[in-house]
């Protein structure tokens, strides 16, 4: 039987500051005046450096994956509503505390080269 030579796989961590800032920007927008969740907003992550930003949903763009803020990233009712005195940055950090390990796994699989595991060569 033939044997396979393994090749190294780049392991780029998800960029926390850009994810936090994107989520905070979303919170700023939907909490301006009356709280109004926006189900068209997505967190987009770029493959090359795993940085993220906020945009409206659209067909996929090469080299990125995206996740809906409402429902997909944060599924609890009113999760994105700011509490009294809470800043978007503070809320974003709290929200990310709850999903960060899971989000890293999602990203790893969505950018994985093979289906043999998220760290497979």
């Amino acid at each position, binding site marked *: 039987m*033939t044997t396979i030579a393994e090749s190294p796989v780049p392991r780029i961590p998800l960029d926390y500051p850009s994810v936090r800032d994107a989520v905070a920007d979303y919170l700023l927008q939907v909490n301006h005046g009356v709280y109004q969740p926006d189900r068209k907003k997505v967190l987009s992550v770029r493959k090359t450096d795993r940085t993220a930003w906020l945009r409206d949903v659209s067909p996929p763009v090469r080299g990125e994956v995206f996740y809906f803020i409402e429902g*997909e990233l944060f*599924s609890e009712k009113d999760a994105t509503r700011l509490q009294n005195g809470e800043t978007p940055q503070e809320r974003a950090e709290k929200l990310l505390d709850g999903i960060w390990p899971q989000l890293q*796994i999602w990203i790893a699989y969505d950018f994985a*080269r093979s289906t043999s595991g*998220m760290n497979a060569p």
Partner: protein
Amino acid sequence: MNTVAEHAYLLDPSAPADDMRQDPGQAATHLAAFIRQFVEEDPRNALPEGERLRIWGSPLLGIAAADDPLFTKLKTPGVVGPLHRSPGEWLSGAQSVISWFLPYNKAVRASYPKKSPLPSLAWVSGRRNGEVFNNVLRRAVIRFLEKHGGQGVAPSNEAHYQAIGMIPLWSERHAAFIAGLGSFGIHGALITALGCAGRIGSVITNLVLPPTPRPYREIYEYCPYPDRCGACIPRCPAQAIGAQFGANWRDNARCVIQGRDVVGEFFKDWGYHSCGHCLTWLPCADRIPRASSPRAQTPEAKTRAEEPEPAFLSTV
């Protein structure tokens, strides 16, 4: 139960949760409707290049009982292997395994060259970006189950999932076989009522759902070889399929090398790889072949097989 009305992501957090424990039959119907609508509507079911073709057509869905004895049999060396984990080893209290087959959209399938040793851009893009969508679907199904009073685990997206020496801790194809979606071809892919050109996903749940009957008894029941066909053997550019490779009919390493190194090198600038010769331009590409066992001809399969065969089949 609510109808699936919301756009995919779907589940409105403010909507009341339903309990899918009350009526397993209705729960399965509700789940199937959700999955079909999700595949239809989620914007990630599209190629990022060109005309943004849809990658996947309407899926097939099958359900297996988590305690089906075949899951234990998968641990047998030579079947999958001792590393393979049964549903209960992924999710405590597992009751059912939800498995789906996503068939390539006809336009993506037709883009595959008939003669070239290389795939089309649409195919390799669909393979990569379509698997991202498959991940999205796995997560959506889990969220759906949670919303309706259950739990779900997608083994292929778990942090500790891996394949060791090409033996996976969870085999999507074998789970699909147990869930009644189809039997294997000698090319290693599962032949379903919609053919073999597609991808498979699954989620294990603690909800009781009615198992899908398996309309076959044998591993290779839908594959006409060796009595007839064998079209995939000469079509494989890596010569990875054939009786010389023993009971499993193929050399997986040759297959991987072709997809990763040969195709991957050609599509390096695009960031894509993977071959699909054994899934395209074959009698089993989009249906159960007419020449397969009579027992394979379920009502759905018969209807499909009675449709006119595409002209290309006569020129393979």
